[in-house]
């Protein structure tokens, strides 16, 4: 049996090896020594090492005493009673999701070597993928909310950069901005939850907070709603889900591993991790159920009305993630975890397969004259024509959610900013004007 110190170091390879691989590739790029072959070797070695470490660690954990295992690596920094701890938490949930992350990263790296061969951004993709892997593993294995936030931010930034991978085109860049804005706004929820846990429970450590929440009074509704808000953004839930179909602007491999299978489930994982705390708030649970159900319905309809395959898949993904929110809201954590892992695997395959599946479908349509999609359309004919048109219009316009956000949130903020700027400019001009006027008056007197 492996002692806990060795176990900690072995499991730490899961986030550390990809991070180190990313650093090496960054240095190779800076020194202009990065070739496709070298970068691919570094990436595969790093991912393989992380995977191996995780497997050995999880094996050691399963052979040891039952129950969650907290592994400490000391503190990053301290300041006046505050201590940023680097702790990993191994339990059934983190073990399953962490293994999934490693497995999908390994498969993606293998797929991408051929898929992105001679692409101008080959090296950049592998750098971002490794950083994403390190962030995702940190998020999953984090023993406290602060460390989870570190992983959360790395996942967010790398996701944004991958959406904008083809940066010469306007579409991916706009999509990346959309993703970033959603992520940044939802970060407020996670940060608020983190500091609130410190304020009222004096810890953000998952296990300790669970105990403290039973012993002392704390604003469970406020913290719960903050966590759900954070998860809504990351997991593309109503009304913040507009970024997901746009995120498909990146390379197929990144769509598959990041938005189809891993990144989009980060919010679900957060809720699963914080589930013992969320149980204290019926408002948070109701919100999860409400948001999840609305997303499931409208995303399913949008998926059916989507004209392109990747968008249809992304809406279907959001719809399933909505169902996971509902499951967590009802306290069905094991089902939600199984749903998460199975859904991630399915979507990963589907996203990778999309380009070739589309070719197959077109070939089939050419041969048979009809496809499954036509059969789906037939089912809608049971509805009246006006209803059908209305539902179709709403579905294709994504139920006007984005138009409403643009009209009632984005435009007012930008208008306020520009109005304030005009006011500032007038103030500056007034300074000059008053001086000029003073001189003119003096001149007149003379």
């Amino acid at each position, binding site marked *: 049996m492996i002692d806990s110190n060795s176990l900690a170091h072995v499991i730490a390879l899961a986030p550390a090896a990809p991070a180190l691989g990313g650093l090496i590739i960054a240095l190779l790029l800076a020194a202009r020594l990065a070739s496709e072959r070298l970068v691919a070797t570094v990436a595969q070695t790093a991912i393989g090492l992380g995977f191996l470490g995780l497997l050995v660690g999880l094996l050691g954990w399963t052979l040891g005493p039952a129950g969650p295992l907290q592994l400490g690596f000391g503190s*990053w*920094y*301290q*300041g*006046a*009673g*505050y201590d*940023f701890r680097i702790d990993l938490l191994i339990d059934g949930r983190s073990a399953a999701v962490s293994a999934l992350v490693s497995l999908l990263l390994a498969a993606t790296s293998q797929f991408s070597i051929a898929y992105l061969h001679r692409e101008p951004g080959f090296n950049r993709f592998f750098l971002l993928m490794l950083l994403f892997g390190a962030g995702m593993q940190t998020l999953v294995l984090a023993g406290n909310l*602060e460390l989870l*936030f*570190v992983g959360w*931010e*790395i996942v967010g*930034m790398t996701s*944004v950069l991958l959406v*904008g991978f083809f*940066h*010469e*085109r*306007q579409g991916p*860049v*706009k999509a*990346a*901005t959309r993703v*970033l*804005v959603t992520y*940044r*706004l939802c*970060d*407020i929820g996670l*940060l*608020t939850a983190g*500091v*609130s846990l*410190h*304020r009222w429970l004096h810890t953000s450590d998952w296990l300790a907070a669970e105990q403290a929440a039973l012993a002392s009074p704390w604003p469970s509704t406020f913290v719960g709603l903050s966590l759900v808000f954070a998860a809504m953004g990351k997991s593309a839930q109503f009304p913040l889900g507009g970024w997901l179909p746009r995120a498909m602007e990146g390379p197929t491999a990144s769509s598959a591993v990041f938005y189809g299978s891993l990144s989009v489930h980060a919010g679900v994982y957060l809720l699963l991790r914080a589930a013992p705390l969320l149980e204290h708030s019926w408002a948070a649970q109701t919100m999860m159920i409400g948001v999840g159900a609305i997303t499931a319905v409208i995303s399913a309809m949008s998926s059916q009305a989507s004209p392109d395959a990747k968008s249809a898949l992304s809406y279907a993904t959001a719809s399933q993630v909505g169902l996971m929110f509902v499951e967590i809201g009802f306290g069905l954590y094991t089902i939600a975890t199984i749903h998460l892992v199975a859904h991630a695997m399915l979507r990963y395959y589907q996203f990778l397969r999309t380009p070739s599946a589309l070719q197959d479908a077109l070939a089939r349509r050419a041969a048979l004259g009809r496809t499954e999609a036509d059969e789906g359309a037939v089912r809608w004919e049971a509805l009246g024509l006006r209803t059908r048109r209305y539902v179709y219009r709403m579905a294709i316009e994504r139920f006007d959610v984005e138009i409403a956000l643009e009209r009632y949130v984005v435009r007012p*903020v*930008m208008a*306020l*900013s*520009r109005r*304030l*700027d005009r006011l*500032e400019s007038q*103030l*500056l*001009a007034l*300074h*000059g004007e*008053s*001086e*000029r006027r003073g001189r003119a008056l003096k001149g007149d007197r003379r």
Partner: protein
Amino acid sequence: MSAWVQYSLIFLWLTPLLAAAALRWGVRGAAKQRALSLGFAVPIFLVACALFVHEGTRHAYKEDHLEQGLGWLHSHFAVDGLNAVLLPLTAGLTLVALLMTPRADMRAGLAAKIMVVEGALMGSFLALDAGLLSIFVVLSLLPLWFDAKHRGSRPLQVIMKSLVAATTAALTVAMIGLALEASAAGVANPLDLVALASSPYSPSPWIGTLVLAVALLRMGIVPLHLWIPATAQHSTPHLALVTCLTPLGSFMLARLALAIFPRVLGPAAPLLMAVGAFTALYGAFLAVGQFDLRRIVAWFWVSQSGLVLAGFAGLDDASVSGALLQAMSTVVECGGLMLLTLAVEVRANTTDLRKLGGLAHNAPRMATAYLILAAAAVGFPGTISFVAEDLVGQGLLRDHPFVVGLLFIVTAVNGITLWRAFKRTFLGPPSPHADDLRGFEDLRRWETYAIGGMIATLLLGGFLPEPLLAVRRGVVDAIGRVEAVALTAGEGH
């Protein structure tokens, strides 16, 4: 104290001033001026670094003093926890600014003006004498004022004149009042900060209020902020950079207001907290709608100054540690972003976002550097700002959870602002309104090294923040006194 430390305390502020004199009256020609200014700036930077390493690596941190003269003719310089980090920071920023100033812009004594600012800032940081510190503070503004006189913008001239006049008047009255009061109270060296801090005498609140007002003015706190965006947009850019984007305001707050005027700062803390939070929000909302890269950095600076002020006003060990760290990191981040902005301006002849776009294709190094600095500026994990913002948040949390929530919104909005600036400058196709940007050059070798050094500083400090926090521990301890006074005042009411 070792002799070289003693000489360094004079060398660091006197050399730049002598260099400025030589540049102004001794050397003609842009190339020679550039070479000579760099010839001075490099050793100043090295000495500042050596002093930081020598002082900062000690376990038991003690001040090194150089005290001369008596009474009113008294000078006192020292290196301590508060200024040890700021010395290499200022010297480094000046060096990078000189390196990245195009040769053509070296006309009209720009190098001399930059060196005067460096000398004045170094003097301000090193002086432990309130009178000398005040002189250096005023001196640091004069180059920008003279520069404004030669620019066409009348609002800028009026603002700079008002800034210099207000700073001079407030500090003169405060210093005369302090000297008279302290002499009457029996303090031997009435303007010596160490003597004042260790004596039972406590200056009148109006003196502290004047000094506090100058510190806030220098930080760019709303409504005293007008000069920051005005100079960023209308002044000679590299000079504005080394004058505006410096932590002198927060330094004055820590050096003078916290240590000498606890009776003012303690009761005023709630008001300062509100003003700081409002400034942070105001700056963030103004930055998000801007179309000019220079103004974006200026408003971002204003926003960050608000965050620093809120951290100081928290009067909590963690929040003050965070504020000190944030004040330092913002200089590097905003300085780096402004230098890249100016590099874009030199090459594209504009900083208007509507006329840029797609520069990453020609300038990948510049784009990468901008992205990393922007991420660092909004507190991405692994950078100094992450640690600083976390500490400020944790420090304010106990008594001011609402302010913490507000600061989180500020951080989110600032992140969106800087990404938008990055996106519209470097990504996508070039703007249809842009001039031909096909010949846009990437960063040159020296520019890459300079910006790379700034990024390395942010990352190193972010991954290993403990030494930086340890250096400032003594300063943070001083907060205990202010907090005690604030509590006493609260009980009195």
